[in-house]
């Protein structure tokens, strides 16, 4: 019986994720290439603004941008789509009893799948800059778990709030833009004045982005970011599960 349940939930998760991946680019000619387009274009824009126009002094600035923009894209896209998660699945939620949080898990996984596919592109850039990939990269699975938990929890929270206040969709869009510039993605942490540095760690997005950035950019594992991101992810996970369990029977009334 329990074994059959495990089978069932695996199937449910796989099919929902497969659907998300299949549907995303089903009607476009370039398909997967579109998921590369956004971060690559941003790289180009910021390169122009900061390297060519304002002449920021930082070696390998393009590679630095690449190191942060793809992970940001995963977080940003999943949360943007996640805000409407329940509303866009209204007919299902109203009529069929299945674990609703699987919608969030499959969203995180399908967006994460995109991120995985972008890692070869990042590697290409690394080689282009005559740098290497080191043994530290073996930590990637752990990073993936932390990042997935983080995004999953945030998605559950914003999707639930959005049921009560449809304004959430706009607010999330604004906030994400705001956070994007507050997080050292297009500028390095070292350029942030030292008395502001502490505040960086209050930004829950920063440690996660920083983890990936340091790994891709200089094969480094940042212990502080690692510990803090784990703490943030666990706190968010507990909080979001509480909210979810308390309100899951309300979803069908609210969508």
């Amino acid at each position, binding site marked *: 019986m329990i074994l059959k349940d495990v089978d069932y939930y695996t199937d449910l998760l796989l099919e*929902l994720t497969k659907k998300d991946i299949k549907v995303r680019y089903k009607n476009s000619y370039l398909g997967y290439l579109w998921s590369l387009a956004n971060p690559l274009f941003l790289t180009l824009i910021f390169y122009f603004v900061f390297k060519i126009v304002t002449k920021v002094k930082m070696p390998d600035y393009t590679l630095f941008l690449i190191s942060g923009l793809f992970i940001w894209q995963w977080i940003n896209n999943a949360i943007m789509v996640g805000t409407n998660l329940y509303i866009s699945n209204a007919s299902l939620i109203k*009529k*069929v009893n299945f674990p609703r949080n699987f919608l969030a898990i499959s969203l995180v996984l399908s967006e994460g799948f995109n991120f995985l596919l972008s890692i070869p592109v990042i590697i290409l850039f690394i080689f282009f800059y005559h740098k290497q990939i080191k043994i530290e990269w073996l930590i990637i699975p752990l990073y993936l778990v932390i990042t997935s938990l983080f995004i999953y929890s945030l998605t559950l929270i914003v999707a639930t709030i959005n049921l009560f206040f449809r304004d959430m969709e706009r607010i999330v869009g604004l906030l994400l833009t705001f956070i994007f510039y507050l997080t050292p993605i297009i500028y390095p942490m070292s350029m942030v004045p030292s008395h502001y540095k502490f505040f960086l760690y209050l930004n829950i997005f920063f440690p996660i982005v920083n983890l990936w950035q340091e790994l891709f950019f200089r094969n480094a594992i940042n212990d502080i970011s690692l510990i803090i991101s784990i703490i943030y992810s666990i706190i968010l996970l507990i909080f979001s599960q509480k909210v979810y369990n308390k309100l899951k029977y309300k979803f069908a009334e609210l969508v």
Partner: protein
Amino acid sequence: MIRIEFKNVYKYYTLLNTGGIKNFILHFFKHIQTIKNNKVLALENISFTVKDKEVVGIIGKNGAGKSTTLGLIAEVLAPTKGEVYVNGKIAPLLELGAGFHPDLTGKENIILNGILLGMTKKEIIGKLDSIIEFSELGDFINEPIRIYSSGMLSRLGFSVAVHVNPDILLIDEVLSVGDFKFQEKSKNKIYEFKQKGKTIVFVSHDIGTIRELCTKVVVINDHRLIYEGEVEKGVEIYEKL
């Protein structure tokens, strides 16, 4: 064996008209008050039981609370007060093709929908031919369903739903899908379920079908249960409402 039991069930819906987050923050306390008072009654003190192998029709006027009752049985809603016991696997034929995605083919949607309705992928693959045959979609099954007509969509949804092997079948006015021939076929399928000894809960305004199919009726009027028992008597009470 008791399949479904309602014990003094109350259901209120909260009307959440906050007027957006700006109004909510500006008039926070006033809003909390209005939200608390802004409740709509859907079911009041409902108690009934459905035993194994019973075919129960729920009848009543529009807005009486029939669909809320089905929602509670399907466990997509939770009662405000009281208790709902459900014992067995449920197949909800409440909204056909809930969760269908327009860009996926008929076949892909069968698998997705079947899983959402509680089957494993292996089970669905095993029943795939039978599902496709029942839907009478032929070669269309490999086309994206956005090109389907509404009748074809309903047929596909119905076919998947009846292939779930449930203990309890919930039906909300879905027997009127497709053309005349398909309607007959759907009804026959439901009879087949009845003969196999499945428990069926059935909401319909079609008194003819209720008479033919049900072994018991529950009449709901103004959110209250006014009759539970024999079909003929229940229909009589309903028709006088």
